[in-house]
């Protein structure tokens, strides 16, 4: 089995705090790899380093065999990295459709064209409408994003990430803020994506993690303490103590 992502000895400090401490991890092509861990363990920090928003202090990142450790964020996107944000990060003044359309356009190229007509680029809008289809948001494509509810925005996050057609998708708590029904739908959506692309999933919703993940890595205080299947993780006393607790959820 080949790996799409390989991380070696990734390190990031904030002042005295070691947010990711010598993290090594790989994601196999086509798998859903979950990353769980207590709050402040460094999960989002890790994702931010992967996508280039934060520079690591040490360590290497390989995407599909290429060393991307020192590559600028947008270039990594071009190589097939996509992400969602834990705290929604959208174009609030645009409509739902414009948001997705822009993501499609960004991937499609031609972004320096100053004299064409964006509304006339049929392929962009066809693809946009296609992406929106089937989601709850398809009913309200022309609503301004600022007017969406919290959960609705979270759903848009995923659609926009998919619009860039990533090979590896980094999902930072996609279920947070979703209702029960919506979480179920999201799980189905992600399941359907399995195989088409690879996913690194950060999530605190254990139902979702156990339902989806092929493998799970556990990050505590910046360090990976174990990687294994759902059952192995569930059964590990360290994980129970540091993370899962006794909640009967």
């Amino acid at each position, binding site marked *: 089995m080949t790996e799409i992502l390989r991380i070696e000895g990734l390190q990031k400090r904030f002042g005295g705090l070691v947010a990711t401490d010598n993290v090594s991890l790989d994601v196999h092509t086509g798998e859903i790899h979950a990353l769980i861990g207590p*709050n402040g363990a460094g999960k989002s920090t890790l994702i931010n380093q992967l996508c280039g928003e934060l520079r690591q202090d040490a360590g290497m990142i390989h995407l599909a065999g290429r060393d991307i450790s020192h590559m600028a964020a947008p270039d990594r996107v071009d190589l097939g990295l996509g992400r969602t944000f834990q705290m929604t990060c959208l174009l609030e003044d645009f409509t739902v459709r414009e948001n997705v359309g822009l993501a499609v356009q960004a991937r499609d190229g031609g972004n320096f064209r100053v004299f064409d007509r964006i509304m006339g680029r049929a392929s962009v809008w066809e693809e946009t409408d296609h992406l929106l289809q089937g989601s709850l948001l398809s009913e309200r494509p022309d609503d301004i994003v600022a007017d969406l509810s919290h*959960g609705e925005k979270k759903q848009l996050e995923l659609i926009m990430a998919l619009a860039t057609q990533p090979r590896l998708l980094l999902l930072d708590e996609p279920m*947070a803020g979703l209702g*029960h029904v*919506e979480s179920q739908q999201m799980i189905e959506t992600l399941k359907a994506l399995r195989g088409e692309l690879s996913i690194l999933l950060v999530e*605190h919703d254990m139902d979702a993690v156990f339902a989806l993940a092929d493998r799970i890595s556990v990050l505590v205080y910046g360090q990976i303490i174990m990687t294994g299947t759902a059952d192995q993780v569930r059964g590990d006393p360290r994980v129970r103590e540091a993370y899962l*607790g006794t*909640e009967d959820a």
Partner: protein
Amino acid sequence: MLTVDGLQAGYGRAQVLFDVSLQVNDGELVTLMGRNGMGKTTTVRSIMGLLGPRAGRIVFDGNDIHGAAPEKVARLGAGLVPEGRQVFPTLTVRENLIATAGNRLKRSDPWTLDKVYALFPRMQERANQMAGTLSGGEQQMLAVGRALMTNPKLLILDEATEGLAPVIRTEIWHVVEQLKAQGQSILLIDKNINVLKRLADRHYILEKGNVVWTGSGADLDRDAERVHGYVGV
């Protein structure tokens, strides 16, 4: 404690709430449920005075607070943990906690910095970190701590466990249980219905801006089919 009657509200020309009525009595834990975008947060914002209601009555602790300013509602004793955390990013953790703290209602056993730190040791560790750089879950803890520090009569939690690790979530439920035992009134929005079933006195389900179902935890099980239709559980 809190009575909402026939509340209507919306943004701009779009009406979001059509008929919302609910009640939280002294010492009660009441939940508001519903799918995304059904109007839960809008209800909370209307109660807090952050959104001018269009019609209906809101009475809090004997005061008509329809259209009142948010600071007035808060001073009467409503404490809010808002959706999406909304911590003050340019203040340190400690400053976030003490800036708006107070014991306006002269509680005998008020929440203090030490107590919040005891509840969330992580906050003490990060006391001097800018809140904007906290992790998502840490910010959530801070938002809860900040609301507790205002020592409210009625605590309103809008998805307060979003993004929290299971252990911390459990911890929060413990606190909620304790608070309830101490007679604190709580209005709660959360998707962890299984836990809430056990804790709450009463549930309201919102659907497209209307309260469509009311009942106790036991009623939830009894009426499982309808409830499932509304919230998927």
